[in-house]
């Protein structure tokens, strides 16, 4: 398995990336979420602003994934309303890309063919989608692996390819469900940096679910705390995406608060 430093993306390609698109506003109004026979979250009120990164933390089984799948349109809310830019959500859409926890790449397609898929769905011509897919894979540091099948590359590389696939469709929002959960610590930090880097210029709204408090505090403009079947709190994060900020006193205080609320 290659380490992150071997495969740093080619920075020159970043400038040629598709022009920025604006993010989208995602709003929960008194929403109850879950499967019809098993609601897991009730009374959720949350306004996610265009272009911001909201991280969602909570103990396992608290409904983090349910929240994300509802935003993706894969699960309808049981009560209340969820809207995108003021309009009620109606099913899944290419505007809200979902990055999954586990392997969601199609195993019979090469990494490039996987990234080409959302472009094909959008009707991008064949040669155009090939170059776009290769550009995106290069941006996540997979220029060498474009013709590999998913099971021939490492777990971290698969997640990077998933990220490329999600962003290639130029979504207004990117919903990420513990995308780095299965990676080791070193790979994980590299992936977080990569995520910050590739998100720059897309303007996409990001909802990022994780059970790792440090990851949540590093990535998020705001962090949402889930637990006991409800949304406990939403906190602004001081100095987000700044590696040097981890010993900032306000950050330390917030970290303690988050850990305490998760522990209870």
């Amino acid at each position, binding site marked *: 398995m290659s380490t992150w430093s071997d495969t740093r993306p080619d920075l020159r390609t970043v400038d040629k990336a598709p022009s920025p698109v604006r993010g989208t506003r995602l709003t929960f109004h008194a929403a109850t979420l879950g499967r019809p026979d098993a609601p897991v979250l009730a009374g959720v009120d949350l306004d996610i602003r265009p272009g911001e990164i909201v991280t969602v933390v909570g103990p396992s089984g608290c409904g983090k994934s349910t929240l994300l799948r509802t935003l993706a349109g894969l699960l309808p809310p049981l009560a209340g309303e969820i809207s995108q830019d003021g309009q009620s959500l109606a*099913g899944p*859409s290419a505007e809200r890309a979902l990055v999954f926890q586990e392997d969601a790449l*199609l195993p019979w397609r090469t990494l490039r063919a996987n990234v080409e*898929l959302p472009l094909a*769905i959008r009707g991008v011509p064949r040669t155009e989608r090939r170059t776009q897919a290769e550009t995106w894979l290069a941006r996540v540091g997979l220029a060498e692996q474009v013709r590999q*099948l998913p099971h*021939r590359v490492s777990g971290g590389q698969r997640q990077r390819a998933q990220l490329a*696939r999600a962003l290639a469709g130029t979504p207004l929002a990117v919903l990420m469900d513990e995308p780095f959960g299965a990676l080791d610590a070193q790979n994980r930090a590299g992936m977080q940096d990569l995520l910050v880097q590739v998100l720059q210029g897309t303007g996409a709204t990001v909802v990022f679910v994780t059970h790792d408090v440090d990851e949540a505090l590093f990535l998020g403009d705001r962090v949402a705390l889930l637990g006991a079947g409800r949304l406990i709190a939403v906190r602004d994060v001081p100095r987000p995406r700044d590696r040097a900020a981890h010993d900032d006193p306000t950050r330390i205080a917030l970290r303690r608060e988050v850990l305490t609320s998760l522990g209870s």
Partner: protein
Amino acid sequence: MSRPAPRAGRNQRPLPPIGRYALRVAALVAALGLWQLLTGLDVDLWLRFSQFPTVTDVAHAFAERLSGPDYWTDLTDSLTRILTGFLLAAVLGVAVGVLVARSRLAEDLLGPILEVVRPIPAIALVPVAILLFPSNEQGVVFITFTAAFFPVLVSTRHAVRALTPVWEEAVLTMGGGRWRILGSVVLPGALPGIFGGLSVGIGVSWICVISAEMISGQYGVGYRTWQDYTIVNYPGVFVGMVTIGVLGWLTSTAVELLGRRLTRWLPRTSYVPGARPAAPRTLAPARPAPTAAHTDQPSGAEEARDEHLV
């Protein structure tokens, strides 16, 4: 057991491909030799080989047949019937299998009928075929079709139901619709299972096409074999049987090869069980451990295949 070192343990070297083919041919020749021996000596030890034609009898009959026009007519007739029936069964079996697996309405409407018809052996449908179709030809194709249809249907249904849900959800959140999911997720994802059904189906098809020809056919390998039996031409019967065997083997190998080609994306284990090395492409003389096979495999073959499945 008394064999020296080369065949034992981790130092075992796989036979070269030529060697393996030689082994197969030798096995076939040995079987023929045994047959010739038993029948030539008219062995009668409870099993009675005295009435049995010898290999040379059969070979002579075969050579005679090959020079006549009937043999090739029989062959093309049988092949046309089985290919028509099998292709229809493949297309409809996959279509109905996907429909039943993906639609609750289709499952409720078609499920009970299919379950009742499925246990009926295709060959028992001969009366139905005779009543239903204007000519014997169509009846034989119908029986062949029915034989292959159910294995294909059932394996497709299972394969589609066993698909990983995230694949579909991923395509949904890319904005893909029903047809995109069918073409990009359901069909390619179910392909390994579908080919399991096709392999079984082609075998059952042969059984049924031959039986149907014996009962109601005109021309065809099965018809000819039965004709030879009724006029007590035993070498002719054996020519028919050998023909059926070879044709069956060729067609199922074709299905198998096509299946392997279309599902080469499947991750394969790098573990090679002791006696049957799966990867004969060994360039390095000494391989440290069987796990090294994983990295040894040529990547070019796998890389080029992304155009196969849309």
